[in-house]
Each structure stands twice: as structure tokens, then as C-alpha cells.
């Protein structure tokens, strides 16, 4: 990096920009601002409509390309105990107004409040007009009775007679699937429910490996599947990737079985929407004005067998952007687009990061570590190639200071990586298996300690000279 001369004008510019940024973000973040926007939108006589696509398992049914993800709903306080129904209702109304008809929730979302939320806010719409999906919390099921209890409670919470789509939540470990669904007979029970009509279509949400998928598709019959699919985890047919999450291979396997693919994490926890500064430059040079999120959504939605993308509705600007991208004038990605996007992704993949999607299933950590926040902070440096490392070209005392200040200011002292004791409770809940939380925590702690000691040494040498 070049030396930055600090002048009065620069400082003034920073201060002004900072003040304006704060003002703007405060307004954007404020609940009142969001509600005002939604009210304003309700007056629009001809709202942008989402593209709809026929759903093969149910002839005559069309599903909007964008689905309402229920994992991060508006809340009134931090510990999820109180949902923000006023804002939530307006968000759902916004979605419906723009043609959205697929709503996705799960037993664990907002500690059970998520299902209650959809039960209440969807009450005013006729049952046939929307599709509701719910999930069996695999890792909480210890017996068949548990599963039956969960299912009945879910119907009650959602105030519905049936679920359109029902999923086995988070298939991540092969033996867990065998144990819960085959040995305990939970899958048979769910098929019974399907025969009884309380489940219209049965599928699964998938976080595991290619062999597990092979087993699932071979042994059982499904109506659809929900997988993580985004440009970052996508592998091409001729790539022969053997490690990591192979979204491309999984997609092709499902396509071969003619199962419609629902997509979760189309933006990989927001990472597709930010990438890094170099990738951003490539895309901005190619097409000005198109957001990174829009590129990511188009990538997934352009795949012919992708039914619907599920997206969290917590960030309003992103929701508006997604609706615009997946509207009736949706543009398929061209060959040239693929080539451009590939170049940008190559820039992005130069700097490896911890692929945490911020799903927060690991939270709360029993020992108080802010796991997703710590990873996000670490990635903000790693992803830009800004980690101060011994031999790195970017290493400097200023960068070390920036790194340490950022850690100090982002993560509170009692929630940092050094409080991870490797108890592995998070591993039970983490759907990602390409990295292990305690291992990464230890690496981060060691790295921070290393940078700290380097910074201190240089500082003390300077002060004694």
C-alpha cells in the first residue's frame, strides 16, 4: 500500500463523509424509515411482479421465483423473545403485493416464534393462495414420539391444516439421518402424514456430502429438495472438485432425478453481495449499476431446474433489489455474463476465508463467544487480503494497528475467540462441515496474539529509541 498523506482536507472529507454515512445508515436502519417505505409502496397501483414458475409436483401451481425466508424476521429485542408483528405484517404484505407466494419457516427459527409469526400474519390470506413450508428439526428428535409431537405442534403454531412443503431440516450427518429417519421411523411417519394429506410434498434441506445425496436419492422418493446453492460453492461438471461443498454436483444429481431445486443461501450469508473490492471492480466495469447481490441471484435463478430462491427479508434494500432482479422481466445470464462473473469470482477466491453463512444455529455459545461475529470480522480482513502476516506484502505497523483496533472495537472482551474451550457443542448445530468452529477459533486467537506481540514489539522499540 502506498503511504497516505494526511491533510486537513482529507480529514475534513472523512469527517463529513462519516457524519453523512452515519446519518444515512441510521435512517435506513431505523424501523420508522422501513415502515414509511413499506407504507409508501402500498400506495403503488402497479407494483413490480415477481416471475412465477410452474411447480412440477403439483400441476397448475406456480411459485414465485423469490420465497420469503423465515430465519431472520424483524424482532423488537435482541434475544428474540418478542417478534415485531407490525413491521413483520407489513413485510409479508409487501411480498404478497409483489407476487410472492412461498413462505418458509422452521421449528427452531426465532426459538419457535417464527412459526407462530407466520400463523398470525398469513391468517388474512386464503390458504390456497400461498404455500407454506415447515421443517422437522432433525437434531432435536430423540424418538418417534418427539417427531409426532413436533409435527402436531407445528400445525397448531402455524394455524394451518396442512403444509404444502415439508422438509427434513438440515441433513448434515449421514448417521444422524439413518438413525432418526430410518431406524426411528420418522420418515415413514411423515409419509403417513403425506398420505393423510397434512403434507402435500415431502423433501429435505441438505447440508451434507455428495455420497449422502446419492444414498438419499437412491433409497427414498422425494418431491423436491432444498440445497445451499450459490456461485461461491458451485462446481462445474468438468472441474472434478473432490473437497468442499459441491453445489454444482448436487444440483446435477437432483436434476437427473427431475426434482425441482429450492435454493437457500443464494447469497451465502451476504458474502455474494459483498465479495471483495477487487471482484467488485471487475463487475462494476462490466455493467454499471447492477448490484453484486443481483449478479448472485441471477446466477442461481438462471439454472433451468431451480424453482425458487429463499432469501431473508431483514435487509430492506436487499429485498427491494431481489424483487427487482427476479421480477417478470428477469434476464437470464448470458454466456458473456458467465465469463465476466467467472473473472470476478477468480479474484474473490484468491483470498480464502472462513465460509460461515451467519445462520447462527451455533448460538448462543455456552461460553459466550460471538461465533458468527468473530468470523465475519476475521473475513473482513482475510477476504480483502489484508491480514497482517509476517511475510505478506501488506504488512505494516499501521495495518497491524487497524487489525487490532478493529478486533477490539467489534468483539467485546468476554466474547472473543480466547474464550472458546473446544467443547464442540457448536459442531452439533453447525450445518457447515467444510470448517470446524473450534479449530478456526483457535487459529484466530493464535493469529491475533501473534499480531499483538508483533505490534507491541515494534511499538516498544520505537518508544525506547
Amino acid at each position, binding site marked *: 500500500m502506498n503511504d497516505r498523506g494526511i491533510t486537513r482536507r482529507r480529514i475534513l472529507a*472523512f469527517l463529513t463523509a462519516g*457524519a453523512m*454515512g452515519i446519518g444515512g445508515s441510521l435512517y435506513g436502519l431505523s424501523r420508522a424509515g422501513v415502515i414509511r417505505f413499506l407504507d409508501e409502496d402500498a400506495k403503488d397501483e402497479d407494483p413490480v411482479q415477481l416471475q412465477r414458475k410452474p411447480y412440477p409436483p403439483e400441476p397448475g401451481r406456480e411459485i414465485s421465483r423469490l420465497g420469503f425466508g423465515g430465519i431472520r424476521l424483524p424482532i423488537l429485542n435482541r434475544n428474540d423473545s418478542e417478534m415485531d408483528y407490525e413491521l413483520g405484517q407489513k413485510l409479508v404484505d409487501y411480498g404478497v403485493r409483489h407476487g410472492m407466494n412461498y413462505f418458509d419457516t422452521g421449528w427452531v427459527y426465532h426459538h419457535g416464534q417464527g412459526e407462530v409469526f407466520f400463523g398470525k400474519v398469513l391468517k388474512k390470506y386464503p390458504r390456497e393462495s400461498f404455500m407454506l413450508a415447515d421443517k422437522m428439526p432433525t437434531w432435536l428428535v430423540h424418538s418417534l414420539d418427539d417427531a409426532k409431537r413436533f409435527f402436531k405442534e407445528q400445525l397448531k403454531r402455524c394455524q394451518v391444516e396442512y403444509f404444502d412443503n415439508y422438509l427434513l431440516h438440515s441433513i448434515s450427518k449421514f448417521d444422524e439421518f439413518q438413525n432418526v429417519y430410518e431406524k426411528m421411523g420418522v420418515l415413514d411417519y411423515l409419509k403417513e402424514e403425506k398420505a393423510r394429506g397434512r403434507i402435500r410434498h415431502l423433501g429435505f434441506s441438505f447440508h451434507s456430502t455428495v455420497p449422502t445425496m446419492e444414498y438419499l436419492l437412491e433409497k427414498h422418493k422425494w418431491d423436491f429438495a432444498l440445497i445451499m446453492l450459490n456461485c461461491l460453492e458451485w462446481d462445474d461438471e468438468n472441474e472434478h472438485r473432490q473437497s468442499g461443498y459441491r453445489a454444482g454436483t448436487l444440483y446435477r444429481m437432483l436434476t437427473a432425478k427431475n426434482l425441482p431445486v429450492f435454493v437457500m443461501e443464494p447469497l451465502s450469508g451476504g458474502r455474494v453481495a459483498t465479495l471483495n473490492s477487487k471482484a467488485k471492480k471487475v463487475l462494476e466495469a462490466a455493467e454499471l449499476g447492477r448490484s453484486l447481490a443481483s449478479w448472485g441471484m441471477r446466477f442461481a435463478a438462471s439454472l433451468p431446474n431451480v424453482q425458487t430462491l429463499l432469501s431473508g427479508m431483514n435487509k430492506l434494500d436487499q429485498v427491494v433489489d431481489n424483487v427487482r432482479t427476479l421480477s417478470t422481466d428477469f434476464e437470464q445470464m448470458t454466456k458473456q455474463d458467465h465469463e465476466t462473473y467467472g473473472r470476478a469470482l477468480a479474484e474473490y477466491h484468491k483470498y480464502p476465508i472462513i465460509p460461515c453463512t451467519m445462520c447462527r444455529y451455533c448460538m448462543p455459545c*455456552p461460553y459466550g463467544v460471538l461465533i458468527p461475529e468473530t468470523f465475519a470480522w476475521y473475513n473482513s480482513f482475510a477476504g480483502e487480503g489484508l491480514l497482517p502476516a509476517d511475510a505478506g506484502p501488506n504488512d505494516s505497523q499501521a495495518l497491524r494497528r*487497524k487489525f487490532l483496533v478493529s478486533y477490539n*472495537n*467489534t468483539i467485546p472482551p468476554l466474547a472473543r475467540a480466547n*474464550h472458546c474451550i*473446544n*467443547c464442540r457443542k457448536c459442531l452439533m448445530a453447525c450445518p457447515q462441515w467444510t470448517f470446524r468452529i473450534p479449530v478456526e477459533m483457535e487459529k484466530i486467537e493464535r493469529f491475533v496474539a501473534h499480531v499483538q506481540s508483533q505490534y507491541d514489539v515494534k511499538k516498544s522499540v520505537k518508544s525506547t529509541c
Partner: protein
Amino acid sequence: MLRKIRLGVAAALFVCENLFFISVGIGLGVFEKVQLVPALLAVNVAAIVSIAAVTLLFGRVYCSTLCPLGVFQDLVIGAVRIFAKKRFAYASAHTVLRYAILALVGVAFAFGFAAVPALIDPYSLYGRIATHLLQPAAYAVNNVAAWIADRSGHPLIFKQEIFIRSTLAFSVATASLAAIGFLAAVWGRLYCNTVCPVGSLLAVLSHRPLFRIAIDRERCVGCGLCAKVCKSVCIDVNAHTVDNSRCVDCFDCLESCHNGAIRYTAGAIGKPKCLSTSSYTKEPEYRGRCFFLMGMAYFAATTAVAIVRKHIWPVPVLVPENPPISPPGSGGSGNLLMQCTACHLCVAKCEGRVLRPALLEYGLGGVMLPRLDYSRGFCGWDCNACGEVCPNGAIHPLTLEEKRKIRIGRAVYNRVQCVLVADKVSACGNCAEHCPTKALVLVEEKDKKKYPHINENLCIGCGACEFHCPVKPLAIHVIGIK
């Protein structure tokens, strides 16, 4: 002119002293080290002699410039003058009360009962205000700046944690701020001339300093303007005298006089005329010399007592049975009880947020003395700030190498509460991971779990294990040593 110089010097020193307390820059600590009570306790002979000499020559300028509490009172009085018409009137000195308090402080100190002098020593009193009230305020400003910097993508400022280090010390600081502020607003420098042990000590020396405020009888018209601005209430207009033992040399009176009748000069004004009425003038001359000698003797004696007390025959103090962990370099709680006046400079400067004012851990005499509390951090391997900054000699300055070897406590392991037993997890080892001396190692036992074992000879009691212990109640904690 003199008044302006005094204002300038006082402002500069006050800013430096406060900046040091709120932790900006390490080099300004010299002004804390030359405060009288800390200098006496640390037997800083150069400082003691300089203060004595300056006082003998120029009067109590110390009280108007170097003393942070004195300057703080001047600020309060100045503020009152802006908003209201404040007039003072001459009052006689509370001599008996004043020296009784001084004696009490001396006795309390001699017997290691630090709480009494700690409460009224002006430097320590102001130090606690700075540590518990000013520093959090400064941190709040810092954190707003850090937040703005973070938001604009340039994280350059470390956020500081704001928390109440001790409810007692916070309350005492708030109460003393209110009390001193009130006293100053209503009665001027009453605290300095009645309660303050430093004021009393210096008063002995300044009964007749070489340069002093005096009234020229020939020019004085008896308007009393000087007495009205005198916050030490020491100008008796009717008798045309100034009580120099109470005068803090603020020089406010010089500018109040329209006739130039009140002046700061060497010796008395109008001596020749006074000489003619011999009986009237001889007495002050004689008294002045007498006071001078008495003051010198007194001061020398105080210094001698301080030296003896510290180096030759330390007074046996009551050390509690289970002492808390005292700072590294304090030489145990006994030394701390004798030397510390709880100015909390070390508390303000502690990088690990570990030093906290004690409640009754040191006994009744050691209320508010610093002790180590590992709930928010641990005693840093690369930090020796407390010894570096201590002006009292209560915590000796140590090099990093020395400090890393000094034992301040010992870790105790309680297996029943350990996360391996209580939570039934298979592995933890967070304590061993963070032990800087490797005194704590993991040993595999029959159940294939690795349990911590402590090597008492290597443990220095830094508290890294206690801070990182994940369970409550703690399975590993550090206890003080005698």
C-alpha cells in the same frame, strides 16, 4: 501580571495531570510524583526540599498551581463568579482544628491505617475523582470518536470499556466532588486551610515567606475590595494584615486594588515608618524568624520520620489473615497499607482492567486500596504500568523481566466445579492454554480426560487461568499470599 502567570501555570499543570489520569501519554507523570504527600511517602528528597524552599521563598504557590484539587476549587470559584456576585469576608483561622486533623493524619499513617489520610489527602482525593468520573467521561468521548472512525471504514481508535470499578470508590469520588465543590462555592478555600494536611504542613512554612502579600498602609484607603475577592479569607483590612499561613498566592487581590496598596514584595511594606513605633513592629519580625525556624524543624522532622518509617524501622501494621492479591511490586499488603493513599492512578492506568479498589479485603484501614480482580481481565504479561506510575512508592517500579518473575498470588484448582466434571465436556484446557509460565499443565487421567495440574513453584498468580475459566462458580481462582 502575576495573576496571569499563575493562571497560565496552573492551567498547564492541571491539564497535564488530568491527561495523565485519563491515560494519554506516559511522560507527563512527573507532576504526580512531586505532589507533597506522595513525595513524603516515597521519600523523594529532591521534591520535598524543593517544595519547602519554594514555600519559604514565595509562600503557598504550591496550593494554587501544582495541587490539582486546589486548581479544581479555583475553577469552581471562577464558575460561581461568572454566574453570581461572590463576595468573601475575613474570618479568623481554625488553628486548633487544623493542626488536630494534621496530627490525626500523622498518627493514622504511622499505624498503617491508610484509609484516613487517603480520604483527605488532596492529591489522592482528586485522583479518585479523575479516575472514577473524569476517565469514564473521556472514554465516552473516545468511544464516540472510535464509532465514527469504524463506521467510516478507518478503524484507528481503540474503544475503551466503561464500567464502574468499585461502587464504593465511585460513590466516594462523587461525594467528595460534591462536598469540595460545595465548600469551594460557599466558603472558598476553607478545605485547604482547615482540613487539608498538605495545606497545614505548608502553612507552618509560610507564616512569613520572603515574598509575600502585604498591605501598604499609606496607600490603603480601607475600601476592602481585596478582602472581598480573597477566597482564603485571610486579608484583615481593619488591621491591614494578611495571614500568610492561609494565603495561597492566587494574586486575585493584586488586581482588585485601585490604589496599588496591596503588593507581592520581599519583606514588609513601609518598614522605616513602622520601625519608629518599635514595640509594634518588633514582634512580627521576631515571630517571623521564630516561625521560620520552627517550620524548618517541623519539616525536617517530618522528612526524617518518613525516612525512618520507610527504611529503618517500618511500623508493624495489621495484615489481614487472608489478604487479597496486591499489585506486583507492592511487596505484599503490609507495605501497601503503609504507603498507599488510594489515588487510584494505578487503577486508571491498568491495561488489563484488573486493578480495582478494595472494599474490606485489606481490613478497615485498607478501604479503597488497589487489589487485583480477574473478572474482566488478567495481569498482563507485557505490562508493568502500575509500578511505573505509582508516585507513593507503594508499588515499586519493575522491569518487565522482574515483573514476570514476581509472585502475587497462587492459583487454586477446584476439580468439582471444573467444566470437565460439572459440564461433562470431554476437553477444555483453556486455563493451561493461557498460562504464560506453563505452571499449569494438562495431565491425562484414567477417564482419558486431561485435567489441569498446577506447579506451585512456577505460578505467579497473574490470573490468566481464572479469567479464561469458563464455568461459574470458577473452577480455578487465584488467592493472595501473605
